[in-house]
């Protein structure tokens, strides 16, 4: 029975090196990941520096964006980014909450699951598809059936005229926001649904056991239970809307000035970069676009950081 005594034959000289190497490889990969994010920041700072240096604070306040005279002010795209993201959130948030609540609380299970899965799958559809639909289907319909009648019926100089003025071709800030809203809607619904399902069944049952109506259970038990998470999801949705490129570029009209109404064409940071970067000839033009990128990064980083911190706190 000693055929296998440890002293016998060929004990492999092993382990110590393999362990160190593998561990080092894993550590390097994790560090590389951080380096990627650091690289994004550093390249944006370096690339955009000339623009900040030349235009100073005016870069943020001026809305003159002129590649011919090499004067760049980013107020237009920055405001455009904030308005479209905000508008799309205003539209998408109640809808997404409604969908999630409906699926988790009211919808019969056999229907809720397929719809839930479908919503999750739709969240994965590339944004360029949403953009194309906006350009070819939504914008023309909107121009024809909404924008034109509104503009025609508005009295010149009235508040309606001011709010709705613009070329009635459907390519404007409002339609871009709507497309963004449709795009972030499945994403937000899916995460909300997941979030609501983390509420323990006993908590829910205890509330129903007291005689609460479904509305009261949701308002007083479920939403407070995951309140941090709800804000986290809103921030995630906002982050997506802020940084989205393709869905917006197709349809916002790409005008650099300060938008005058919600039916005016405008631009966002992402759409401006997407449209002009490869065609930028002057060094200052490139620098201005990269500087725009840095502004976008700072905004989204702040939003995403808040979102992640809140969602992390939600886990158990």
């Amino acid at each position, binding site marked *: 029975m000693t055929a*296998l005594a440890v002293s016998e*034959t060929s*004990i492999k000289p092993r382990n110590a090196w393999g362990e160190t190497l593998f561990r080092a490889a894993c550590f390097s990969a994790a560090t590389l990941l951080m380096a990627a994010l650091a690289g994004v920041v550093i390249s944006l700072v370096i690339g955009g520096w000339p623009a900040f240096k030349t235009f100073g604070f005016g870069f943020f306040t001026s809305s003159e964006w002129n590649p011919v005279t090499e004067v760049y002010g980013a107020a237009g795209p920055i405001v455009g980014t904030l308005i479209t993201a905000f508008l799309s959130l205003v539209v998408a948030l109640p809808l997404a909450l409604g969908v999630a609540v409906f699926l988790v609380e009211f919808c019969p299970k056999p229907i809720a699951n397929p719809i839930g899965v479908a919503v999750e799958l739709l969240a994965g559809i590339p944004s360029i598809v949403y953009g194309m639909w906006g350009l070819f289907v939504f914008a023309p319909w909107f121009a024809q059936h909404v924008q034109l009648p509104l503009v025609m019926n508005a009295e010149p100089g009235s508040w309606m005229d001011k709010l709705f003025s613009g070329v009635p071709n459907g390519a404007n800030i409002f339609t871009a926001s709507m497309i963004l809203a449709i795009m972030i809607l499945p994403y937000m619904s899916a995460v909300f649904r997941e979030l609501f399902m983390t509420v323990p069944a006993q908590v829910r049952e205890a509330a129903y056991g007291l005689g609460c109506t479904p509305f009261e259970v949701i308002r007083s038990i479920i939403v407070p239970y995951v309140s941090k998470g709800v804000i986290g999801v809103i921030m995630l949705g906002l982050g997506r809307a802020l940084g989205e490129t393709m869905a917006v570029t197709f349809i916002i009209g790409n005008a650099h000035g300060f938008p005058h109404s919600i039916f005016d064409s405008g631009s966002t940071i992402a759409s401006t970069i997407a449209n002009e970067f490869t065609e930028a000839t002057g060094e200052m033009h490139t620098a201005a676009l990269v500087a725009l990128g840095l502004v976008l990064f700072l905004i989204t980083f702040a939003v995403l950081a808040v979102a992640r911190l809140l969602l992390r706190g939600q886990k158990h």
Partner: protein
Amino acid sequence: MNDVSIAAPTQAEEQYMVAPARENLVIEARKLDFFYGKNQSLYGVDLPVERNKITALIGPSGCGKSTLLRALNRIYDLYPGQHAVGRIVLDGNDMLTDRKSLQRLRDRNSTGATVDEEPQASRAGSDLTQLRARVGMVFQKPTPFPMSIYDNVAFGVKLYHRKSKSEMDAIVERSLRRAALWDEVKDKLNKSGLGLSGGQQQRLCVARGIAVEPEVLLLDEPASALDPISTAKLEETLMELKRDFTIVIVTHNLQQAARISDYTGFMFLGKMIEFGPTEDLFSNPRAQRTRDYVTGRFG
């Protein structure tokens, strides 16, 4: 037959030790403290284990019997923050002699709470893979690896030896036979180990553990997830195995300890209350607590 020595009770709790003769010991824990972070869960525990015997550890849950078992092959090293202070002697070699463990022992000696001679730093104490090759372990829940039955058994052997296919076949067959599993699986050696029943999975883990020919086999409540028939089969296997191996088993089943073990240690609140030959401990317990426990008055 046994060199009978009764240790004086330490600290507040009375403590009775009837240890086997020193030259028959294969592994021994001496004055072992154990810490989960800052929480101490073992207090100066002694555990002498005689060669080719079955030693059982009993006691109410949370008494530290599993902790003691997990200290014997230093599996706790996986988790930062857990550490043992004291000595673990395997065949005369100290196993707690890496730099950190020695430092802790020195610190403890200097406080004077429990003083023990300090072993020399040695390679034995820092080469954990060698320690674990000599002290195998089977866990509470069956832990088949996600691979075939054959590969499960061969897994440990491959770590230490280069074997030809025919040699490996022989080792796998012998290990499975010794674990009383061969007849049930010989036709499906290439099927996944996850497809076996719970009792078979546990015997597969035993086969995997003994395939590397350890000197000591540690079993942590190996039957707690099994039905009575599988349990009986496992016990039978263990009785067979003690001819070749030394076995330490943690169990919460007193009948099981009485049935299969030669020595029994009763632990309570992180201390070894009484240790001695199984018959004595069950028929004539010396400590009041042991008497209460084995007669079912608490625990």
